[in-house]
């Protein structure tokens, strides 16, 4: 398949040039996915498909447009490309829109990021059914008589991607993945039926946890929500659990993009080199992490990927600036978007931290809410556990936290020792002091 993608991309670039493009960048994807869901101990859904797609960016007389197609037959593609070029000529000129300076393509790491499981083909329909059945069984067993409904699901896939630019870039990437998840709904007081999920993902079969771990996690998390209610509005320490940190951290990372900054939509625009968080916050972007979900030796512009310290002990060091916005800003480009995000873990477990804090709220889920990248104001609903003397005493629901990012992160006091392995945000649980948690 790899050679086929290369031949097609090279042909596409030649065709775009012949149609009048001065420059062109092509991205071709080819993927196969399988999805199986179980409920009430029988398959609820089975879905399987192969997809392919080609997206094309064209640069014509200082003008730019992008289009996408999955019809990879050459006669159709040829017409597609010539029309794309013709349409581009009608747009306004944009002097900043060019292919990147090829010097940024240099220095790509020639390392095996171990993104492909050579054993992928051994994962057969029988293996999938057995895996998902075991997830369902373990969730049902652990959930016991509280279970109203359990749904288990597994998805796996293999995808290939090629990026090629007419000024001398090509990069091929391939990935396999296996996902298992379960969702349980439980009986509670009145008409409340709390639901939670457990899940795991791995790029290699050997790294995939036992199905029972996933099923039992879903049941344990769901049972923990029983009796959830809101409590009085209070200023408390909070612990945001590792798997949901991304929801809050995303508000910070969004404001670090070159586009937000250039379009004057970032509360961090003038904060580079300044302290924006407590000494405890260090944020690393590492696209070269082995078996990382967002690892890739090159980025969307074809820039050679490298590990970057974005925030160092509370000081904002870098932004996500792609080639286009680097030209608009007159800055040096970095990379256009986050890859694997890492907050170095601390030494203590969540349980130890809870014991130390005495009373506070462990946030295990968020609901609704949003973050304004222009002002930094964020407000989001929370679900979790009130703990006292270090022990969970009450499930909380229908409550909310609100703050400005520039204030919230100065009250970040500790990272736990539990980096979350199933996301490109490999972040541990985070502790903040003095947060207004609103309820009654």
């Amino acid at each position, binding site marked *: 398949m790899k050679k086929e993608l290369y031949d097609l991309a090279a042909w596409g670039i030649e065709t775009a040039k012949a149609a009048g493009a001065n420059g062109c960048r092509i991205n071709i994807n080819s993927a196969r996915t399988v999805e199986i869901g179980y409920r009430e101990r029988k398959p609820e859904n089975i879905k399987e*498909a192969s997809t392919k797609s080609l997206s094309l960016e064209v640069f014509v007389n200082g003008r730019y447009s992008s289009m996408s197609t999955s019809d990879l037959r050459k006669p159709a593609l040829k017409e597609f490309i010539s029309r794309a070029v013709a349409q581009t000529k009608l747009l306004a000129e944009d002097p900043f829109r060019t292919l990147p300076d090829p010097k940024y393509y240099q220095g790509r790491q020639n390392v095996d990021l171990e993104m492909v499981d050579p054993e992928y083909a051994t994962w057969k329909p029988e293996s999938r059914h057995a895996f998902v059945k075991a997830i369902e069984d373990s969730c049902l067993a652990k959930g016991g008589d509280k279970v109203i409904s359990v749904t288990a699901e597994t998805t796996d896939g293999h995808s290939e991607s090629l990026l090629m630019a007419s000024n001398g870039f090509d990069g091929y990437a391939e990935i396999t993945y296996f996902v298992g998840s379960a969702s349980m709904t439980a009986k509670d007081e009145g008409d409340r*039926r709390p639901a939670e999920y457990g899940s795991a993902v791995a790029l290699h079969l050997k790294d995939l946890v036992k199905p029972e771990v996933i099923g039992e996690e879903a049941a344990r998390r769901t049972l923990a929500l029983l009796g959830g209610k809101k409590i009085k509005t209070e200023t408390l320490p909070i612990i945001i659990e590792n798997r949901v940190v991304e929801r809050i951290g995303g508000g910070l990372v969004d404001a670090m993009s070159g586009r937000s900054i250039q379009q004057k939509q970032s509360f961090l625009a003038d904060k580079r080199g300044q302290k924006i968080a407590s000494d405890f916050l260090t944020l690393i972007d590492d696209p070269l992490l082995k078996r990382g979900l967002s690892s890739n030796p090159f980025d969307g512009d074809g820039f050679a990927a490298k590990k970057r310290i974005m925030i160092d002990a509370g000081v904002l060091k870098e932004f996500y600036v792609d080639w286009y916005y680097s030209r608009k800003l007159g800055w040096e480009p970095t990379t256009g978007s986050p890859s694997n995000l890492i907050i170095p873990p601390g030494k203590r477990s969540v349980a130890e931290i809870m014991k130390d804090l005495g009373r506070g709220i462990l946030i295990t889920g968020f609901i609704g809410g949003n973050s304004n990248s222009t002002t930094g104001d964020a407000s989001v*609903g929370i679900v979790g556990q009130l703990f006292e003397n270090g022990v969970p005493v009450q499930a909380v629901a229908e409550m909310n936290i609100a703050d400005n990012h520039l204030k919230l992160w100065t009250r970040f006091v500790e990272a736990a020792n539990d980096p979350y392995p199933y996301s490109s945000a490999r972040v541990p649980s985070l502790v903040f002091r003095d947060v207004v948690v609103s309820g009654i």
Partner: protein
Amino acid sequence: MPKPISIESWEGFMKTMNRRAFLKTGAATAAISIAAPIFDKTWFALAAAEAPGYFEREFAVTDAVCRRILAKALAKGGDYADLYFEHTISNYLILEDGKVNQAYSNVALGVGIRTVKGEQVGYGFTQELEEKSMAAAAATAATIAAGAAKIPPQGFTLLKTGDHYPLKILFSAVPLEPKLGIVQSVNDRCFDLSPLVIKVNAAYLDQQKRIMVVTSDGTKAEDLQPRIFLNASVVAEKNGRRERSGWNFGGRKNFDYFTPAVVEETAQIAVNRTLTLFDAVQPPAGEMPVVLGPGLTGILLHEAIGHGMEADFNRKKISTYSTMIGKKVAEPFVTIIDDGTTPNLTGSINVDDEGIPGQKTVLVDNGILTSYLHDRISAKFYGIQPTGNGRRQDYQNYPVPRMRNTYMPAGPASPEDVIKAAGKGIYVQDVSNGQVKIGEGDFAFFVSQGRMIEGGKLGAPIKDVNIMGNGPKMLTNMIMLANDFQFYQGGAGSCGKNGQTAPVGFGQPTVLVKSLTVGGTRS
């Protein structure tokens, strides 16, 4: 699991465009890569008249072909099978820094094939409308059953449907110049309206989606679903402080909807909403009366009751509403409707994505919970007729029960009296997004703009605050409705469920809710 809904803006679209064109994997969801379907030669020269038979004319999909594919889908038995053909053409124009300097086009062409056995679904899809590829996808779908083959019907009857959004001229037949013109003029008007405006992002979308559903019960249904919107997003600066807001108009409308007056109104609302924010404060936190202004705040109905009434959640008994049919859930003056037949609204459908005509479904009738929103599977489960709510994002997904336009008709009071009755609380003007937990009924919606209510009158502006509530509790707490019903006239409303998005609409009058939790920053 949470079922979020968001009002899609062009910023969201840009994020999709700019993200690493590679695999991303979320915690509970499957991995995705950027989807980009087929670009067809007919894109720039579509037939002007839209007689039935589009897929047969353009892609040689005849009744005989459909019959053979359905036979494959039922080769191992099953109760039912259907074919969903889709050809969608989307065009975006994007203005940044004063000029329309970016265009993006996408064409989706494919067929999804589904075999249903009881509540079990087998599904395959292909981007190639050739018989060999379709037969392979049908064979995948067939694996859900394990019995004797069933014979598909001899012929198909074309379904008669309503015509709730007639398209006078295909978007693909409108030249690019007038489209560029409205995007440029909304930008120019925003800058003219205030010297405080420092950045404008404008975006225009037109999309024409053609579908054909062919079912094993002998129905064939076709539709052409247009969607269009113009969005302006404004950043203003005053005394070193920056604020951003925006507005969009659109729906299942014709291009000529964008008259100079509509373009002007888009710019005026976008600029006014942004400038108001300079005076905005954070409201206090805690429980208080909340007045919802007319129109867009109908998102509250969508979250607080709509999702919980989708029948898949009820047949699985995972919705908080699953035992409440026939019971009193609200005051007798409260009626809530989900309607696919409202002319030109974003959530309207002549036919749903499994061949059932678009229709009007009453969820709450004068305070009594009356009907869930059904697809074919849930309707069969409950032994009733489907309600035309079987919807899907595209041919790559099988349908599930989804809302259309969800609204609550007006009451008798004046809006001023409703605000007066609140006494002290907050007034919600605009909502950017919301989410609900189906089982608990707990929901949240994010207020991008509103006002304090003090002494029964509107006070200082407020912004960026999340409001929390519980669906069934909130319904009983709706104690006063005003006479100022409005449908939200934006075109960018989009709801997410099971990883699929679908265009939806909202509407309601000014409403007083006795108590909700406001997530402010002050205790």
